């Protein structure tokens, strides 16, 4: 059996996963067609729905790009969720620590850079453990996820809690610490520009720069790369820092652009969905944008599906898992070791 052409395989995976999820719903006695219609309406039906979908696309693009780069380098960074939380935590700490008093021209760069740096640091922990102690990055990033999420839960009930101390959440960011909205929209913030600019930039990095070549070389054939004078350890550390900083930036943009404050469950699993995004994009930076849009639509449509078709919103995770399995099982299988 010949493998599907490159551009068709992701569509096949989506179709296959949707059909599987449909059967799953039938099995449970729900109406798949009605569920799908409600899902599409909830994702693209009107301006509000569309804005909601685009807002969710942003973090998925950023974290998904980080995953795609790491996977290209043969590094299994499963820690996007933790790196995102670390970024959101540091960004909020920077905003609260300066007393919400800085002008926007200082506050916003500070917030975004803090998030980026914290995400990079969180990735670096896994990188250092891997390179110096041989600890599998799969396990360390999984553990670091829990630690970052719990650190946020602790912070919003402790040092970063709002002054009223009513809820476990940080104080609301003032206007100067919020990303500006795009004119004529309700929720589309300037941070989404990153989601448009970064895929082509990282494409250039990955396929048109020496550093990108080194990264890919380590992923394709670490032993050969070593003969070529490339240190797999250094590339591993680098790519974890890079993908961590992208996720950290996503976390900072989320608090400064979307929610305006930090709280538990800030992310509806963006870090995990990003793995599906990267795989559906076939680890290609330009493919990450449409793949992220697809998963964002699933997530934002799932609420409508639950309300009007009575299908639990978590069902979209079944579709997500199906897409990962089908794109890994039938598309990447030829990428032998």
């Amino acid at each position: 059996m010949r493998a599907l052409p490159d551009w068709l395989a992701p569509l096949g995976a989506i179709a296959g996963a949707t059909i599987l999820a449909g059967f799953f719903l039938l099995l449970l006695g729900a109406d798949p067609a009605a569920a799908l219609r409600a899902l599409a309406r909830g994702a693209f039906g009107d301006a509000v729905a569309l804005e909601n979908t685009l807002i969710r696309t942003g973090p998925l693009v950023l974290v998904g790009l980080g995953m795609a780069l790491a996977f290209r380098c043969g590094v299994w960074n499963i820690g996007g969720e933790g790196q995102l939380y670390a970024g959101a935590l540091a960004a909020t700490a920077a905003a609260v620590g300066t007393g919400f008093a800085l002008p926007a021209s200082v506050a916003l760069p500070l917030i975004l850079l803090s998030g980026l740096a914290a995400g990079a640091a969180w990735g670096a922990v896994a990188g250092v453990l891997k390179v110096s102690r041989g600890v599998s990055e799969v396990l360390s990033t999984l553990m670091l996820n829990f630690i970052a999420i719990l650190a946020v839960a602790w912070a919003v009930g402790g040092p970063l809690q709002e002054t009223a101390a009513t809820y476990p959440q940080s104080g609301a960011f003032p206007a100067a610490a919020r990303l500006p909205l795009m004119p004529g929209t309700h929720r589309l913030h300037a941070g989404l520009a990153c989601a448009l600019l970064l895929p082509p930039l990282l494409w250039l990095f990955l396929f048109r720069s020496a550093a990108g070549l080194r990264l890919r070389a380590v992923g394709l054939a670490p032993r050969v790369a070593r003969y070529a004078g490339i240190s797999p350890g250094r590339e591993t550390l680098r790519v974890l820092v890079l993908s961590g900083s992208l996720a950290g930036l996503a976390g900072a943009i989320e608090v400064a652009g979307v929610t305006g404050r930090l709280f538990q469950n800030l992310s509806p699993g963006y870090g995990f969905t990003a793995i599906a995004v990267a795989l559906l994009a076939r680890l290609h930076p330009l493919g990450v944008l449409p793949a992220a849009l697809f998963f964002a639509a699933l997530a934002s449509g799932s609420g409508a599906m639950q309300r009007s078709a009575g299908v639990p919103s978590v069902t979209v995770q079944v579709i997500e898992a199906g897409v990962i399995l089908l794109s890994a099982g039938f598309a990447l299988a030829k990428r032998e070791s």
Partner: protein
Amino acid sequence: MDPLLVALLLSTLRLATPLGLAALGELVAERAGVLNIGIEGMMLAGAFAAFACAAPSGSALLGVLAGAAAGLALAALFALFAIQRRADPIVCGTALNIFALGATGTAYRVLLPPGLVPETAPQVAELLPGVHPFVLLALLLALAIAGFLRGTRPGLALRAAGERAEAAHAQGVPVLAVRWGATLFGGACAGLAGASLVLWISDSFVEGMTSGRGFIALALVLFGRFRAGRILAGALLFGFASALQFRLQAIGLEIPYNLLLMTPYVLTLVVLAVWSGRGTAPADLARPFAPRS
């Protein structure tokens, strides 16, 4: 003995046993060369199936069997992709974890709407005071696995499939079949571990209730350096740390709850960093095998 100490030890056993069961199953899979990071999902599926079968029927035994079967079924799905199709095991495991979260969440809300099904599941009873079947099961499993791997021909074949798949194949070991079997066994163990959460530790199902126990079990296999006895000892250590954390909280020690909850994850990282070295891992772990005909 001091009743407080007894309570601490009992809760150590309760917290350690599910970890030990899942980690022992994963040990067998990894010794055969299969890295299954989907055991978190298999535990969750086991917990859900145990609740879905035990609560309406009132039979804890049925719950145990259903839990093992659910873990086995998910493991078969994993094997289909990771062994048969030679897809990346990390990707497949991650997908299965997401799948289990979505599928159990959906099924829980659709099949078991509140009110129609009892809120609580029946509990597996103690054999003797202090002797719980799940603890006994974990001990027997550890003994059986250690004996099987060390002293039997099939155990040797399984280890060969994990260490040198190519060479094992040349010796006539059916590598793919062995890896399938080991994966299914590991899935069933994870399912049992999940069932123990519902039928022993908390009497109900909560979405995502495994909360990373499967990942800690994965770490325990490394912690125990691929030996059944050391893995059980590791599970007890983790169980003790968690039990102590709950105790400290009950005493009202001023340590924030969320920071205490971090202990097992930080401990895992520290232990992995100190132990380090992958010298004891099977050489062909996580390497797909394609028999040349």
